[in-house]
């Protein structure tokens, strides 16, 4: 999958390496800014409240 992607990037080797790094950075930023914040609401690992508030989903 990754080999296939790498072969299909245009340009000489060093350009393709730069493109790869940019793509990786883009994916990481999307994960950090959108995917993980969304996923964390289902995370059972973060709750610091007591009582009824503690029973509502996800607050560590």
């Amino acid at each position, binding site marked *: *999958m*990754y080999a*296939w992607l790498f*072969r*299909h990037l245009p340009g000489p080797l060093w350009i393709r390496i730069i493109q790869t790094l940019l793509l990786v950075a883009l994916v*990481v930023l999307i*994960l*950090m800014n959108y995917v*993980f914040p969304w*996923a*964390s*609401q289902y*995370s*059972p*690992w*973060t*709750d*610091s*409240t*007591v*009582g*009824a*508030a*503690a*029973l*509502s989903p*996800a*607050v*560590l």
Partner: protein
Amino acid sequence: MARNQPRRVAPRRGVISMLVGGLGEILLTLGVVLLLFVVWQLWWTNLEADNTQNSALKAISQDFKPAQAGEKPPAVPKHPIEGKVWGVLYVPAFGDAYAKPIAEGVGMDVLDTVGVGHYPTTQMPGQVGNVALAGHRQTHGQVFWDMDKLKAGDKAYVQTAAGLYTYTYRSTEIVAPDRGDVLFPVPGEAGTKATEKLLTLTTCHPPFTTDLRMIVHLEETAFTPADKPFPEEIRELVKKTTDVGKG
């Protein structure tokens, strides 16, 4: 996949070999994504929270300013709306520069951003009863990371537009998460009429888990109106944080 393979790839891979290889790549990717999630949770969220807290502190210092010199400071809302930042918490035992904004509410939207949240069912500073605040032990700014460091003689300060409330350490307890009674006006006693003014801090325990809660109770030992000089040990930090009081 196969039909796109350039001809120069000499040894042709079998279907099974390609399936196993592809599956391996997917599993490796999932592993990396999970590792990144841990990085996000333990590190990235703290960076984001620091930014939010700093801008919240800047905003609140505007709210604390009297409209004109010599005028009374703006009133503290009796029931602040959810999400509203209404105070600043200072705990020298948590660090010399420890100053965190306090917002109304203990939902994720407050605790994951502003950091310290006020249980809306509990009292406000100055009222008889119990002012209860929640905060993360770790992640999202981890405002109460050092909760276990509080000991006899330690003080915490809550600043509102009205002035600065000084609280002195009383006790620490470790309880199950469902023990909402620690928030009662008289902690642990339903229906008992309160006579004291308390501050209660709640956070996760042990660190990096949500099995239990660490609860610290403090009692109000002093109140300094905004136009009077604040206690010397905290005066400079308050001045630096909110520009209130004489520096």
